[in-house]
Protein backbone atom coordinates (compact mmCIF):
# COMPACT_ATOMS: atom_id res chain seq x y z
CA UNK A 1 0.00 0.00 0.00
CA UNK A 2 1.31 3.42 -0.93
CA UNK A 3 0.67 6.90 0.27
CA UNK A 4 1.46 10.05 -1.58
CA UNK A 5 3.35 12.46 0.59
CA UNK A 6 3.96 16.15 0.18
CA UNK A 7 7.09 15.98 -1.99
CA UNK A 8 5.47 13.43 -4.30
CA UNK A 9 7.83 10.62 -3.37
CA UNK A 10 6.07 7.34 -3.08
CA UNK A 11 6.13 6.06 0.44
CA UNK A 12 5.63 2.48 1.40
CA UNK A 13 3.98 1.69 4.67
CA UNK A 14 5.87 -0.38 7.23
CA UNK A 15 4.50 -3.91 7.38
CA UNK A 16 3.34 -3.66 10.96
CA UNK A 17 1.25 -0.63 10.22
CA UNK A 18 -0.01 -2.24 7.02
CA UNK A 19 -1.46 -5.12 9.00
CA UNK A 20 -3.14 -2.78 11.41
CA UNK A 21 -4.58 -0.79 8.54
CA UNK A 22 -6.00 -3.87 6.85
CA UNK A 23 -7.51 -5.09 10.10
CA UNK A 24 -9.18 -1.74 10.65
CA UNK A 25 -10.59 -1.80 7.16
CA UNK A 26 -11.91 -5.30 7.61
CA UNK A 27 -13.54 -4.31 10.88
CA UNK A 28 -15.18 -1.28 9.34
CA UNK A 29 -16.56 -3.30 6.43
CA UNK A 30 -17.87 -5.86 8.88
CA UNK A 31 -19.53 -3.29 11.10
CA UNK A 32 -21.03 -1.62 8.06
CA UNK A 33 -22.74 -4.92 7.27
CA UNK A 34 -24.02 -5.06 10.83
CA UNK A 35 -25.58 -1.61 10.66
CA UNK A 36 -26.98 -2.29 7.23
CA UNK A 37 -28.91 -5.14 8.77
CA UNK A 38 -30.39 -2.76 11.35
CA UNK A 39 -31.44 -0.15 8.86
CA UNK A 40 -34.74 -1.84 8.14
CA UNK A 41 -37.58 0.58 8.58
CA UNK A 42 -35.34 3.58 8.05
CA UNK A 43 -37.13 6.40 6.28
CA UNK A 44 -34.27 8.19 4.61
CA UNK A 45 -36.44 11.15 3.61
CA UNK A 46 -37.61 11.81 7.15
CA UNK A 47 -34.16 11.20 8.54
CA UNK A 48 -32.59 13.61 6.09
CA UNK A 49 -35.05 16.33 7.04
CA UNK A 50 -34.57 15.69 10.77
CA UNK A 51 -30.79 15.90 10.35
CA UNK A 52 -31.27 19.21 8.55
CA UNK A 53 -33.67 20.46 11.23
CA UNK A 54 -31.26 19.52 13.97
CA UNK A 55 -28.60 21.65 12.33
CA UNK A 56 -31.08 24.47 11.70
CA UNK A 57 -32.10 24.64 15.36
CA UNK A 58 -28.46 24.81 16.39
CA UNK A 59 -28.06 27.73 13.96
CA UNK A 60 -30.59 29.59 16.07
CA UNK A 61 -28.20 29.70 19.02
CA UNK A 62 -25.45 31.76 17.34
CA UNK A 63 -28.37 33.65 15.78
CA UNK A 64 -29.63 34.44 19.26
CA UNK A 65 -26.10 35.34 20.36
CA UNK A 66 -25.91 37.89 17.53
CA UNK A 67 -29.43 39.12 18.19
CA UNK A 68 -28.75 39.70 21.89
CA UNK A 69 -25.11 40.75 21.39
CA UNK A 70 -26.11 43.58 19.08
CA UNK A 71 -28.63 44.89 21.59
CA UNK A 72 -26.31 45.36 24.57
CA UNK A 73 -23.74 48.06 25.11
CA UNK A 74 -20.29 47.76 23.53
CA UNK A 75 -18.62 46.72 26.78
CA UNK A 76 -20.96 43.73 27.22
CA UNK A 77 -21.14 42.31 23.71
CA UNK A 78 -18.90 39.29 24.23
CA UNK A 79 -20.25 38.53 27.67
CA UNK A 80 -23.75 38.47 26.25
CA UNK A 81 -22.83 36.32 23.25
CA UNK A 82 -21.00 33.97 25.61
CA UNK A 83 -24.30 33.32 27.40
CA UNK A 84 -25.60 31.65 24.24
CA UNK A 85 -22.37 29.89 23.35
CA UNK A 86 -21.82 28.58 26.88
CA UNK A 87 -25.31 27.08 26.74
CA UNK A 88 -24.30 25.09 23.64
CA UNK A 89 -21.54 23.43 25.62
CA UNK A 90 -23.17 23.00 29.02
CA UNK A 91 -26.62 21.92 27.92
CA UNK A 92 -25.33 19.43 25.34
CA UNK A 93 -23.21 17.63 27.91
CA UNK A 94 -26.04 17.59 30.45
CA UNK A 95 -28.45 16.39 27.77
CA UNK A 96 -26.27 13.42 26.87
CA UNK A 97 -25.53 12.66 30.52
CA UNK A 98 -29.11 12.54 31.78
CA UNK A 99 -31.25 15.24 30.15
CA UNK A 100 -32.65 12.89 27.54
CA UNK A 101 -33.31 10.28 30.21
CA UNK A 102 -35.20 12.82 32.33
CA UNK A 103 -37.26 14.07 29.39
CA UNK A 104 -38.08 10.92 27.49
CA UNK A 105 -37.73 8.12 30.03
CA UNK A 106 -40.88 6.65 31.59
CA UNK A 107 -42.57 8.52 34.46
CA UNK A 108 -40.91 8.47 37.87
CA UNK A 109 -41.77 10.28 41.12
CA UNK A 110 -45.43 10.52 40.18
CA UNK A 111 -44.65 11.83 36.73
CA UNK A 112 -42.53 14.78 37.91
CA UNK A 113 -40.00 13.79 35.27
CA UNK A 114 -38.98 10.69 33.38
CA UNK A 115 -36.06 8.41 33.99
CA UNK A 116 -34.44 5.54 32.24
CA UNK A 117 -30.88 4.58 33.08
CA UNK A 118 -30.56 3.12 29.57
CA UNK A 119 -30.66 6.66 28.21
CA UNK A 120 -27.71 7.83 30.31
CA UNK A 121 -24.94 8.69 27.82
CA UNK A 122 -27.61 7.80 25.21
CA UNK A 123 -26.45 4.19 25.68
CA UNK A 124 -29.52 2.40 24.38
CA UNK A 125 -29.90 4.70 21.38
CA UNK A 126 -26.93 3.31 19.48
CA UNK A 127 -28.98 1.15 17.15
CA UNK A 128 -32.43 2.34 18.05
CA UNK A 129 -34.89 3.29 15.32
CA UNK A 130 -38.08 5.25 16.04
CA UNK A 131 -41.50 4.31 14.68
CA UNK A 132 -41.34 7.01 12.04
CA UNK A 133 -38.18 5.52 10.57
CA UNK A 134 -35.85 8.10 12.11
CA UNK A 135 -32.85 6.95 14.17
CA UNK A 136 -33.46 7.86 17.80
CA UNK A 137 -30.01 9.44 17.89
CA UNK A 138 -31.26 12.11 15.51
CA UNK A 139 -34.37 12.73 17.59
CA UNK A 140 -32.32 13.00 20.78
CA UNK A 141 -29.96 15.55 19.22
CA UNK A 142 -32.88 17.49 17.74
CA UNK A 143 -34.52 17.69 21.17
CA UNK A 144 -31.16 18.52 22.75
CA UNK A 145 -30.98 21.70 20.69
CA UNK A 146 -34.21 22.88 22.33
CA UNK A 147 -32.62 22.31 25.71
CA UNK A 148 -29.76 24.56 24.58
CA UNK A 149 -31.74 27.48 23.25
CA UNK A 150 -34.25 27.70 26.12
CA UNK A 151 -31.83 28.74 28.89
CA UNK A 152 -29.98 30.91 26.36
CA UNK A 153 -33.23 32.83 25.86
CA UNK A 154 -33.48 33.59 29.58
CA UNK A 155 -30.12 35.37 29.43
CA UNK A 156 -31.80 38.25 27.58
CA UNK A 157 -33.73 39.19 30.69
CA UNK A 158 -30.68 39.70 32.91
CA UNK A 159 -28.15 40.73 30.27
CA UNK A 160 -25.33 43.08 31.26
CA UNK A 161 -25.35 42.35 34.98
CA UNK A 162 -24.61 38.74 35.96
CA UNK A 163 -21.44 36.87 36.89
CA UNK A 164 -20.47 34.44 34.14
CA UNK A 165 -19.75 31.41 36.33
CA UNK A 166 -22.99 31.95 38.24
CA UNK A 167 -24.84 32.04 34.95
CA UNK A 168 -23.28 28.72 33.97
CA UNK A 169 -24.33 27.13 37.26
CA UNK A 170 -27.79 28.65 36.96
CA UNK A 171 -28.54 27.32 33.47
CA UNK A 172 -27.27 23.87 34.41
CA UNK A 173 -29.60 23.74 37.43
CA UNK A 174 -32.42 25.34 35.47
CA UNK A 175 -32.11 22.77 32.71
CA UNK A 176 -32.32 19.94 35.21
CA UNK A 177 -35.06 21.29 37.46
CA UNK A 178 -37.24 23.32 35.08
CA UNK A 179 -36.65 22.38 31.46
CA UNK A 180 -36.43 18.60 31.75
CA UNK A 181 -39.63 18.13 33.77
CA UNK A 182 -41.59 20.55 31.55
CA UNK A 183 -40.30 18.86 28.42
CA UNK A 184 -41.32 15.50 29.88
CA UNK A 185 -44.83 16.69 30.78
CA UNK A 186 -45.50 18.15 27.36
CA UNK A 187 -43.71 15.90 24.90
CA UNK A 188 -43.12 12.49 26.47
CA UNK A 189 -45.83 9.98 25.66
CA UNK A 190 -46.66 9.52 29.33
CA UNK A 191 -46.32 13.21 30.25
CA UNK A 192 -49.46 14.50 31.96
CA UNK A 193 -49.87 17.58 29.74
CA UNK A 194 -49.36 15.38 26.66
CA UNK A 195 -52.44 13.49 27.78
CA UNK A 196 -54.52 16.36 29.17
CA UNK A 197 -58.05 16.68 27.73
CA UNK A 198 -59.13 14.72 24.70
CA UNK A 199 -56.04 14.93 22.53
CA UNK A 200 -53.51 16.57 24.83
CA UNK A 201 -52.47 20.17 25.42
CA UNK A 202 -51.31 21.49 22.07
CA UNK A 203 -47.69 22.53 22.14
CA UNK A 204 -46.29 21.63 18.78
CA UNK A 205 -42.76 22.97 19.02
CA UNK A 206 -42.36 24.49 22.45
CA UNK A 207 -44.66 27.41 23.25
CA UNK A 208 -44.93 26.36 26.87
CA UNK A 209 -41.75 24.31 27.21
CA UNK A 210 -39.43 26.79 25.54
CA UNK A 211 -40.89 30.27 25.28
CA UNK A 212 -43.24 30.61 28.23
CA UNK A 213 -40.83 28.86 30.59
CA UNK A 214 -37.86 30.95 29.41
CA UNK A 215 -39.84 34.19 29.36
CA UNK A 216 -41.33 33.76 32.81
CA UNK A 217 -38.02 32.61 34.29
CA UNK A 218 -36.40 35.66 32.73
CA UNK A 219 -38.98 37.97 34.27
CA UNK A 220 -38.52 36.41 37.70
CA UNK A 221 -34.73 36.66 37.39
CA UNK A 222 -34.87 40.28 36.19
CA UNK A 223 -36.98 41.22 39.21
CA UNK A 224 -34.84 39.20 41.64
CA UNK A 225 -31.53 40.62 40.39
CA UNK A 226 -32.74 44.20 40.12
CA UNK A 227 -32.16 46.70 37.34
CA UNK A 228 -28.86 47.48 35.68
CA UNK A 229 -26.93 50.37 37.22
CA UNK A 230 -28.41 53.57 35.84
CA UNK A 231 -31.58 52.00 34.43
CA UNK A 232 -33.84 53.59 33.27
CA UNK A 233 -32.25 57.06 33.54
CA UNK A 234 -29.07 56.35 31.58
CA UNK A 235 -29.41 55.71 27.89
CA UNK A 236 -28.18 52.21 27.04
CA UNK A 237 -27.74 52.18 23.29
CA UNK A 238 -27.48 48.94 21.30
CA UNK A 239 -23.88 48.25 20.29
CA UNK A 240 -24.67 46.99 16.79
CA UNK A 241 -28.16 46.78 15.35
CA UNK A 242 -26.77 45.36 12.12
CA UNK A 243 -25.66 42.28 14.03
CA UNK A 244 -29.09 42.15 15.67
CA UNK A 245 -30.74 42.13 12.23
CA UNK A 246 -28.48 39.31 11.02
CA UNK A 247 -29.19 37.37 14.21
CA UNK A 248 -32.93 37.92 13.77
CA UNK A 249 -32.67 36.64 10.21
CA UNK A 250 -30.79 33.53 11.31
CA UNK A 251 -33.46 32.91 13.93
CA UNK A 252 -36.19 33.01 11.27
CA UNK A 253 -34.27 30.54 9.08
CA UNK A 254 -33.52 28.29 12.03
CA UNK A 255 -37.14 28.37 13.09
CA UNK A 256 -38.07 26.19 10.11
CA UNK A 257 -36.04 23.45 11.76
CA UNK A 258 -37.56 24.30 15.13
CA UNK A 259 -41.19 24.14 13.95
CA UNK A 260 -41.23 22.04 10.80
CA UNK A 261 -38.72 19.63 12.37
CA UNK A 262 -41.03 19.15 15.34
CA UNK A 263 -43.24 16.95 13.16
CA UNK A 264 -40.41 14.36 13.38
CA UNK A 265 -41.12 13.26 9.84
CA UNK A 266 -40.93 14.62 6.33
CA UNK A 267 -44.48 14.82 5.11
CA UNK A 268 -47.78 16.61 5.25
CA UNK A 269 -47.54 17.81 8.84
CA UNK A 270 -44.04 19.13 8.11
CA UNK A 271 -45.42 21.16 5.23
CA UNK A 272 -48.26 22.47 7.38
CA UNK A 273 -45.86 23.62 10.10
CA UNK A 274 -43.51 25.18 7.56
CA UNK A 275 -46.25 27.28 5.98
CA UNK A 276 -47.65 28.39 9.33
CA UNK A 277 -44.16 29.45 10.44
CA UNK A 278 -43.47 31.57 7.38
CA UNK A 279 -46.90 33.22 7.43
CA UNK A 280 -46.89 34.04 11.14
CA UNK A 281 -43.42 35.59 11.01
CA UNK A 282 -44.41 37.77 8.08
CA UNK A 283 -47.67 38.83 9.72
CA UNK A 284 -45.81 39.65 12.93
CA UNK A 285 -43.27 41.75 11.05
CA UNK A 286 -45.89 43.76 9.18
CA UNK A 287 -48.08 44.22 12.23
CA UNK A 288 -45.16 45.58 14.27
CA UNK A 289 -44.16 47.96 11.45
CA UNK A 290 -47.71 49.30 11.23
CA UNK A 291 -48.15 49.72 14.98
CA UNK A 292 -44.80 51.43 15.34
CA UNK A 293 -45.39 53.62 12.31
CA UNK A 294 -48.69 54.71 13.81
CA UNK A 295 -47.44 55.07 17.39
CA UNK A 296 -43.91 56.47 16.87
CA UNK A 297 -44.10 57.80 13.33
CA UNK A 298 -41.29 55.53 12.14
CA UNK A 299 -40.91 51.83 11.51
CA UNK A 300 -37.63 50.81 13.10
CA UNK A 301 -35.26 48.00 12.18
CA UNK A 302 -35.34 46.66 15.74
CA UNK A 303 -39.12 46.84 15.50
CA UNK A 304 -39.37 44.60 12.47
CA UNK A 305 -37.11 41.91 13.96
CA UNK A 306 -39.09 42.11 17.18
CA UNK A 307 -42.27 41.59 15.18
CA UNK A 308 -40.74 38.64 13.33
CA UNK A 309 -39.75 37.07 16.65
CA UNK A 310 -43.15 37.73 18.23
CA UNK A 311 -44.87 36.07 15.27
CA UNK A 312 -42.51 33.10 15.31
CA UNK A 313 -42.87 32.63 19.05
CA UNK A 314 -46.66 32.71 18.84
CA UNK A 315 -46.80 30.16 16.04
CA UNK A 316 -44.40 27.80 17.79
CA UNK A 317 -47.03 25.96 19.84
CA UNK A 318 -49.54 26.29 17.01
CA UNK A 319 -47.60 25.30 13.90
CA UNK A 320 -49.01 21.78 13.84
CA UNK A 321 -52.65 22.72 14.11
CA UNK A 322 -53.30 26.07 12.45
CA UNK A 323 -53.86 26.85 8.79
CA UNK A 324 -52.35 29.90 7.06
CA UNK A 325 -55.24 32.20 8.05
CA UNK A 326 -54.88 31.26 11.70
CA UNK A 327 -51.10 31.66 11.54
CA UNK A 328 -51.54 35.13 10.08
CA UNK A 329 -53.90 36.20 12.85
CA UNK A 330 -51.67 34.70 15.55
CA UNK A 331 -48.58 36.46 14.19
CA UNK A 332 -50.27 39.84 14.02
CA UNK A 333 -51.94 39.41 17.39
CA UNK A 334 -48.62 38.49 19.00
CA UNK A 335 -47.01 41.67 17.67
CA UNK A 336 -49.86 43.82 18.95
CA UNK A 337 -49.88 42.28 22.42
CA UNK A 338 -46.08 42.13 22.75
CA UNK A 339 -45.84 45.79 21.73
CA UNK A 340 -48.33 46.61 24.47
CA UNK A 341 -46.36 44.50 26.93
CA UNK A 342 -43.18 46.46 26.18
CA UNK A 343 -44.98 49.75 26.76
CA UNK A 344 -46.27 48.37 30.04
CA UNK A 345 -42.76 47.23 31.01
CA UNK A 346 -41.43 50.75 30.57
CA UNK A 347 -44.18 52.00 32.90
CA UNK A 348 -43.61 49.30 35.52
CA UNK A 349 -39.88 49.82 35.72
CA UNK A 350 -38.50 46.27 36.04
CA UNK A 351 -35.43 45.77 33.89
CA UNK A 352 -36.00 42.91 31.43
CA UNK A 353 -32.93 44.11 29.48
CA UNK A 354 -33.63 42.51 26.10
CA UNK A 355 -37.31 41.70 26.58
CA UNK A 356 -37.05 37.97 27.03
CA UNK A 357 -40.39 38.08 28.83
CA UNK A 358 -41.91 40.82 26.67
CA UNK A 359 -41.41 38.82 23.46
CA UNK A 360 -40.96 35.16 24.41
CA UNK A 361 -43.11 34.99 27.51
CA UNK A 362 -45.97 37.12 26.23
CA UNK A 363 -45.76 35.84 22.64
CA UNK A 364 -45.71 32.25 23.87
CA UNK A 365 -48.80 32.82 26.01
CA UNK A 366 -50.63 34.52 23.12
CA UNK A 367 -49.81 31.61 20.82
CA UNK A 368 -50.64 28.82 23.25
CA UNK A 369 -53.99 30.35 24.23
CA UNK A 370 -55.29 31.85 20.99
CA UNK A 371 -54.30 28.95 18.76
CA UNK A 372 -57.41 27.27 20.13
CA UNK A 373 -59.63 29.35 17.87
CA UNK A 374 -57.80 28.39 14.69
CA UNK A 375 -57.34 24.63 15.03
CA UNK A 376 -57.91 22.83 11.73
CA UNK A 377 -61.18 20.87 11.64
CA UNK A 378 -59.50 17.48 11.18
CA UNK A 379 -57.68 17.85 14.51
CA UNK A 380 -60.90 18.77 16.31
CA UNK A 381 -62.65 15.80 14.71
CA UNK A 382 -59.90 13.50 15.92
CA UNK A 383 -60.16 15.01 19.42
CA UNK A 384 -63.93 14.53 19.38
CA UNK A 385 -63.50 10.90 18.39
CA UNK A 386 -60.99 10.37 21.21
CA UNK A 387 -63.31 12.10 23.68
CA UNK A 388 -66.07 9.77 22.58
CA UNK A 389 -68.43 12.09 20.75
CA UNK A 390 -67.80 15.80 21.05
CA UNK A 391 -64.95 18.12 21.92
CA UNK A 392 -65.52 21.85 21.78
CA UNK A 393 -63.17 24.75 21.25
CA UNK A 394 -63.93 25.92 24.80
CA UNK A 395 -62.93 22.61 26.30
CA UNK A 396 -59.64 22.79 24.41
CA UNK A 397 -59.23 26.40 25.54
CA UNK A 398 -59.47 25.15 29.10
CA UNK A 399 -56.74 22.60 28.43
CA UNK A 400 -54.50 25.22 26.80
CA UNK A 401 -54.98 27.68 29.66
CA UNK A 402 -54.26 24.95 32.20
CA UNK A 403 -51.01 24.08 30.43
CA UNK A 404 -50.00 27.74 30.25
CA UNK A 405 -50.75 28.39 33.92
CA UNK A 406 -48.89 25.24 34.97
CA UNK A 407 -45.84 26.27 32.92
CA UNK A 408 -45.90 29.82 34.33
CA UNK A 409 -46.24 28.76 37.94
CA UNK A 410 -43.75 25.89 37.74
CA UNK A 411 -41.08 27.88 35.88
CA UNK A 412 -41.61 30.97 38.03
CA UNK A 413 -41.41 29.24 41.40
CA UNK A 414 -38.50 26.94 40.53
CA UNK A 415 -36.52 29.80 39.00
CA UNK A 416 -37.00 31.88 42.14
CA UNK A 417 -35.67 29.01 44.27
CA UNK A 418 -32.69 28.45 41.94
CA UNK A 419 -31.87 32.15 41.98
CA UNK A 420 -31.72 32.11 45.77
CA UNK A 421 -29.55 28.98 45.75
CA UNK A 422 -27.06 30.35 43.20
CA UNK A 423 -27.03 33.75 44.90
CA UNK A 424 -26.29 32.26 48.32
CA UNK A 425 -23.67 29.86 46.96
CA UNK A 426 -21.54 32.07 44.74
CA UNK A 427 -23.46 35.31 44.17
CA UNK A 428 -25.29 36.05 40.95
CA UNK A 429 -25.28 39.79 40.44
CA UNK A 430 -22.10 41.41 39.10
CA UNK A 431 -20.18 43.64 41.44
CA UNK A 432 -20.48 47.34 40.85
CA UNK A 433 -17.01 47.65 39.34
CA UNK A 434 -17.50 44.67 37.01
CA UNK A 435 -20.73 46.16 35.79
CA UNK A 436 -19.04 49.52 35.17
CA UNK A 437 -16.13 47.90 33.32
CA UNK A 438 -18.43 45.67 31.33
CA UNK A 439 -18.72 41.91 31.31
CA UNK A 440 -16.16 41.52 28.50
CA UNK A 441 -13.13 42.67 30.42
CA UNK A 442 -14.44 41.67 33.85
CA UNK A 443 -15.16 38.00 33.08
CA UNK A 444 -13.53 37.20 29.77
CA UNK A 445 -10.43 39.40 29.52
CA UNK A 446 -11.31 40.48 26.01
CA UNK A 447 -13.15 43.23 24.25
CA UNK A 448 -15.52 42.71 21.37
CA UNK A 449 -15.13 45.74 19.20
CA UNK A 450 -12.09 47.81 18.33
CA UNK A 451 -12.11 51.46 19.25
CA UNK A 452 -15.50 52.24 17.80
CA UNK A 453 -17.89 53.32 20.40
CA UNK A 454 -17.35 55.28 23.63
CA UNK A 455 -19.83 53.25 25.60
Amino acid at each position, binding site marked *: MYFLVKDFKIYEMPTKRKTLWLTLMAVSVLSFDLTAANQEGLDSGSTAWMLTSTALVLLMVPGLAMFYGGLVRTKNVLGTMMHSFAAMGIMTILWVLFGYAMCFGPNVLGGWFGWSSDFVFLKSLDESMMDGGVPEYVFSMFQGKFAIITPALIAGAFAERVIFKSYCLFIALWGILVYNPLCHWVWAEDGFLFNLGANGAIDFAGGTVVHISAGVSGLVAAIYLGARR*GYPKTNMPPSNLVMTMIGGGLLWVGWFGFNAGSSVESGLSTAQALVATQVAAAAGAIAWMIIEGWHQGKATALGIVSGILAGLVAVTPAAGVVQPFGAMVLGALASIICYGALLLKNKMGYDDSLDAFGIHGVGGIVGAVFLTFFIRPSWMAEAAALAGGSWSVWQQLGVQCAAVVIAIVYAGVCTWILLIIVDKLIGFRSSRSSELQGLDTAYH*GEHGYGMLNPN
Partner: protein
Amino acid sequence: MKLITAIIRTTQLDQVREALIENEITRVTVSRVSGHGRQKNAEQIHRGRKVVPSLAPKIKLEIAVNDGFVDKVVDTIIDAATSNDGYETDEVGTIGDGKIFITPLEECIRIRTRERGPEAI
Protein backbone atom coordinates in the same frame (compact mmCIF):
# COMPACT_ATOMS: atom_id res chain seq x y z
CA MET B 1 -13.60 81.18 28.83
CA LYS B 2 -11.78 77.94 29.49
CA LEU B 3 -11.59 74.57 27.78
CA ILE B 4 -11.58 71.73 30.27
CA THR B 5 -10.15 68.50 28.88
CA ALA B 6 -10.39 65.45 31.09
CA ILE B 7 -8.86 62.07 30.40
CA ILE B 8 -10.67 59.44 32.51
CA ARG B 9 -11.10 55.71 32.83
CA THR B 10 -13.55 54.17 30.36
CA THR B 11 -15.32 52.53 33.28
CA GLN B 12 -16.01 55.85 34.97
CA LEU B 13 -17.70 57.45 31.98
CA ASP B 14 -21.29 56.69 32.96
CA GLN B 15 -20.73 57.90 36.47
CA VAL B 16 -19.01 61.12 35.36
CA ARG B 17 -21.70 61.87 32.82
CA GLU B 18 -24.45 61.28 35.36
CA ALA B 19 -22.71 63.56 37.86
CA LEU B 20 -22.23 66.29 35.26
CA ILE B 21 -25.88 66.15 34.26
CA GLU B 22 -26.90 66.28 37.91
CA ASN B 23 -24.89 69.50 38.21
CA GLU B 24 -26.54 70.90 35.09
CA ILE B 25 -23.44 70.59 32.95
CA THR B 26 -24.97 69.08 29.85
CA ARG B 27 -22.70 70.34 27.07
CA VAL B 28 -19.90 67.91 26.66
CA THR B 29 -17.96 66.18 23.89
CA VAL B 30 -16.89 62.59 24.55
CA SER B 31 -14.33 60.64 22.56
CA ARG B 32 -12.60 57.32 22.91
CA VAL B 33 -8.86 57.75 22.98
CA SER B 34 -5.85 55.68 23.93
CA GLY B 35 -2.50 56.49 25.40
CA HIS B 36 0.38 55.82 27.75
CA GLY B 37 0.62 56.87 31.33
CA ARG B 38 1.98 55.53 34.56
CA GLN B 39 -0.86 53.01 34.71
CA LYS B 40 -0.09 49.31 34.29
CA ASN B 41 -2.52 48.13 31.66
CA ALA B 42 -5.14 45.50 32.35
CA GLU B 43 -4.23 42.06 31.08
CA GLN B 44 -6.21 40.53 28.29
CA ILE B 45 -6.24 36.86 27.38
CA HIS B 46 -5.67 35.61 23.86
CA ARG B 47 -5.74 31.81 23.40
CA GLY B 48 -4.15 31.14 26.74
CA ARG B 49 -1.56 33.87 26.43
CA LYS B 50 -1.72 36.89 28.68
CA VAL B 51 -1.44 40.03 26.63
CA VAL B 52 -0.87 43.49 28.02
CA PRO B 53 -1.96 46.09 25.49
CA SER B 54 0.64 48.81 25.06
CA LEU B 55 -1.94 51.54 24.75
CA ALA B 56 -4.57 51.95 27.42
CA PRO B 57 -8.07 52.83 26.27
CA LYS B 58 -9.30 56.04 27.87
CA ILE B 59 -12.17 58.46 27.54
CA LYS B 60 -11.62 62.12 26.75
CA LEU B 61 -14.18 64.70 27.80
CA GLU B 62 -14.09 68.23 26.47
CA ILE B 63 -16.16 70.92 28.11
CA ALA B 64 -16.00 74.62 27.24
CA VAL B 65 -17.13 76.84 30.12
CA ASN B 66 -17.20 80.44 31.25
CA ASP B 67 -14.67 81.21 33.95
CA GLY B 68 -17.16 81.06 36.82
CA PHE B 69 -18.03 77.43 36.16
CA VAL B 70 -14.50 76.02 36.04
CA ASP B 71 -14.32 74.92 39.68
CA LYS B 72 -17.76 73.32 39.65
CA VAL B 73 -16.96 71.27 36.55
CA VAL B 74 -13.53 70.24 37.79
CA ASP B 75 -14.81 69.22 41.22
CA THR B 76 -17.64 67.22 39.69
CA ILE B 77 -15.27 65.35 37.37
CA ILE B 78 -12.74 64.66 40.14
CA ASP B 79 -15.41 63.27 42.45
CA ALA B 80 -16.98 61.05 39.82
CA ALA B 81 -13.83 59.92 38.01
CA THR B 82 -11.99 58.66 41.09
CA SER B 83 -12.01 54.87 41.00
CA ASN B 84 -13.10 52.67 43.90
CA ASP B 85 -14.76 55.61 45.58
CA GLY B 86 -15.52 53.73 48.74
CA TYR B 87 -17.79 51.10 47.21
CA GLU B 88 -15.78 47.91 47.28
CA THR B 89 -12.42 48.68 48.88
CA ASP B 90 -11.22 51.36 51.23
CA GLU B 91 -8.55 52.38 48.80
CA VAL B 92 -9.70 55.51 47.03
CA GLY B 93 -8.11 56.50 43.75
CA THR B 94 -5.59 54.45 41.83
CA ILE B 95 -2.96 55.17 39.22
CA GLY B 96 -4.73 55.56 35.92
CA ASP B 97 -7.71 57.56 37.13
CA GLY B 98 -6.70 60.25 34.64
CA LYS B 99 -5.92 63.93 34.37
CA ILE B 100 -7.69 67.22 33.82
CA PHE B 101 -6.22 69.96 31.66
CA ILE B 102 -7.53 73.52 31.69
CA THR B 103 -6.61 75.75 28.79
CA PRO B 104 -7.66 79.32 28.00
CA LEU B 105 -10.22 79.49 25.24
CA GLU B 106 -9.75 82.28 22.75
CA GLU B 107 -13.10 82.32 21.05
CA CYS B 108 -16.35 80.40 20.88
CA ILE B 109 -18.89 80.70 18.08
CA ARG B 110 -22.36 79.21 17.87
CA ILE B 111 -22.75 78.23 14.24
CA ARG B 112 -26.52 78.65 14.02
CA THR B 113 -26.72 82.22 15.35
CA ARG B 114 -23.11 83.32 14.81
CA GLU B 115 -23.03 84.54 18.41
CA ARG B 116 -19.51 84.92 19.75
CA GLY B 117 -17.83 84.80 23.14
CA PRO B 118 -19.31 83.82 26.51
CA GLU B 119 -22.86 84.02 25.14
CA ALA B 120 -22.16 81.18 22.78
CA ILE B 121 -20.92 78.71 25.37
